[in-house]
């Protein structure tokens, strides 16, 4: 920040503004799924190493959030939901966000490599690259399938957590990745169906606006159907078990029923009950993900006592 601009504005960014750049709410989900990935792994991790590993994953995710806000400041300014973010609201300079994003990315990846292993650090580096460059800079503004492919960035954390513990990649961690990856589109499109968005004004292609709401409803159903075998398949691996399987069956039926309900509706029905079904399915999708990962955690806890697992 130059001295000139400092004299121009009386506002001085505080730590809270910089923290907001890291997207704390996204970070909390990342911490949760990464922690589950780390704890369900068959290799015990020293608690402090595990703590540093999760911290690095969280900071790396935050850094990619800051880079995303730096890149997207122009469209964030145009949308109501994002206009209050630190850069569009003028509290933080774009250059500061870029600097913080790059610096924290470097710190998180290097510290993760030193504290744990190079595979986990490489996965984290790739996640940051994927979210900041592939999703933010390329996919988001070019295709209505941005959320499908971009969802991979949010799906990596449990895989990194697993790599922190085991130093490897296996069917279990790939399926945890696949679970979040396949869950993201129906979750997000359910939201897009009831939130009055101004993506169109910002020129961001969203399925609801490029292909219409009926197509979006069909897509919710198709992706939910594709999600079911992934969720159940995870239950057959070494980290699954009867308890996980029971939770998965119930949650998948619930989510699937919601997706079918959505696919049978039209705009008139949505207006009539003020998107009650869509809002409900969106909530179910949140419970869905939490229930699956909590069930995995519970299976891991049971294994300590010789229970759980197949």
């Amino acid at each position, binding site marked *: 920040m130059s001295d000139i601009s400092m004299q121009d504005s009386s506002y001085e960014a505080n730590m809270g503004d910089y923290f907001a750049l890291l997207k704390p709410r996204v970070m909390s989900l990342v911490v949760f799924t990464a922690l589950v990935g780390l704890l369900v792994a068959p290799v015990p991790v020293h608690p402090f190493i595990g703590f540093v590993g999760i911290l690095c994953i969280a900071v790396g995710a935050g850094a990619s959030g800051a880079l995303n806000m730096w890149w997207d400041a122009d469209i964030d300014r145009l949308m109501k939901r994002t206009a209050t973010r630190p850069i569009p609201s003028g509290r933080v300079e774009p250059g500061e966000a870029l600097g913080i994003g790059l610096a924290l990315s470097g710190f998180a990846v290097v510290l993760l490599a*030193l504290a744990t292993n190079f595979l986990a650090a490489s996965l984290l580096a790739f996640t940051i690259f994927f979210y900041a460059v592939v999703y933010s800079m390329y996919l988001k503004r070019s295709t209505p399938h941005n959320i499908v492919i971009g969802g991979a960035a949010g799906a990596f954390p449990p895989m990194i957590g697993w790599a922190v513990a085991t130093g490897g990649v296996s069917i279990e961690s790939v399926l945890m990745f696949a679970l979040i990856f396949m869950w993201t589109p129906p979750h997000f499109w359910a939201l897009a169906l009831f939130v009055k968005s101004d993506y169109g004004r910002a020129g961001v292609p969203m399925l609801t606006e490029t292909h219409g709401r009926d197509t979006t409803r069909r897509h919710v159903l198709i992706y939910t159907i594709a999600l079911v075998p992934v969720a159940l398949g995870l239950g057959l691996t070494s980290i699954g078990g009867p308890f996980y399987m029971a939770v998965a069956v119930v949650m998948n039926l619930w989510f699937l029923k919601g997706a079918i309900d959505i696919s049978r509706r039209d705009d008139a029905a949505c207006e009539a009950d003020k998107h009650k079904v869509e809002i409900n399915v969106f909530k179910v999708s949140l419970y869905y993900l939490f229930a699956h990962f909590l069930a995995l955690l519970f299976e891991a806890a049971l294994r300590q006592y010789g229970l759980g697992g197949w």
Partner: protein
Amino acid sequence: MTMKVEHEVHGRRKNRNYGVLILLLCFVGIVLGLTVVKVIQLGDARKFEATDHVARPQIIPEEGTE
């Protein structure tokens, strides 16, 4: 003689400066903690000395002892 020179920017930047102080202290704590944990995990403290890039005759096991 008082050495205290208060500038307007000190008050304005107080929040940030303390924030950076806390972050740096946390960073030092993490690096220290990692060092302690990693050294203890070695089991044999002599392995830590082996990371020194200088020849250490005293850590080379004598013939017949191992």
